[in-house]
């Protein structure tokens, strides 16, 4: 977990900051700063920390977040398979992160609806990686799709579809 001056400005994702005018040339720099800030914010969510989530990629409406295997996440003690609820939490975090990193620049987001399909049991002992894509944003709603995989990346463990609120734009 990184901390510092960036972390102090972390009202960014969920409170609408003062309107600022920017030149196109500054835009990319600001976007990458914002993604960095969003990344730090996501890495600072208490529940995500408790589940051991690690942000791997963030930007352009796409987020990749991983969750290493841990005994405490087990939902079926007979098989050692991770609980669906833990996968839901990972999916929710990843989808929210994807919305935050979308180029349309939402200042904040909250889950409205999230549907998860559990395709197969994740292999016990393997880390689960989720990739979420925010594929459309309107003035008030963001639409997201996500896939979760274990080491066998060709065969997804779960897929998710979600709609998220858009809290105002930068």
């Amino acid at each position, binding site marked *: 977990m990184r901390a510092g001056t960036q972390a102090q400005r972390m009202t960014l994702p969920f409170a609408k900051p003062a309107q600022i005018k920017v030149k196109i040339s500054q835009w990319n720099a600001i976007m990458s700063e914002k993604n960095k800030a969003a990344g730090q914010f996501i890495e600072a969510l208490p529940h995500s920390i408790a589940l051991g989530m690690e942000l791997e990629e963030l930007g352009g409406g796409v987020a990749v977040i991983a969750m290493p295997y841990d005994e405490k996440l087990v939902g079926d003690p007979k098989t050692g398979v991770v609980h669906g609820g833990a996968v839901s939490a*990972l999916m929710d975090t990843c989808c929210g992160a994807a919305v935050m990193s979308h180029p349309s620049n939402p200042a904040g987001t909250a889950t409205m609806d*999230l549907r998860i399909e559990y395709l197969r049991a994740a292999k016990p002992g393997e880390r689960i990686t989720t990739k979420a894509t925010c594929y459309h944003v309107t003035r008030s709603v963001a639409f997201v799709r996500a896939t979760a995989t274990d080491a066998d990346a060709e065969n997804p463990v779960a897929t998710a579809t979600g709609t998220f609120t858009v809290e105002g734009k930068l």
Partner: protein
Amino acid sequence: MNTRPRPEPMQVVKERRDKVLRTLVEDVPYIQFLGIQFERRGDELTGILPFKETLIGNPLLPALHGGATAAFLEVTAIITLSWGLIWEDMESGTLDVKTLDADHLPRLPKTIDFTVDYLRSGLPRDAYARARINRSGRRYASVHVEGWQDNRSRLYAQATGHFVMPQRKPVDAG
């Protein structure tokens, strides 16, 4: 002549049911990790998610993490379904409660899909949930779960899920 058997003493009934429920819930690490408890009134279960800091998703509001809410509702659905499966065997004596441990409980139902509808942001306080089994067949079940905090009539989240039911052991079927 009275052929009707005498009802069991209340304490015996309560101890049996509470023991089975405890075994079911304490066996799952993720339920323990979230700190979910269950309260029982007859066969009706209420899930309780006592508030703790690690359940927070947005520290600025603060609000419960959507994932914690989803997991809470899913756990409530699975335990309620499983409890329904066990009930009959437990009451008839087919399930030997004295020697009961996690290995002698039926397998848990498996989630096929789960859809959570977030109605309002989860406040940093205890949450409650109750599941209604809309359909429970031999292979599949459909369950609806309602979650609330301060007011029972003001849900903060609700969910619907489909589950594959565990196959009954051949001994039970025969």
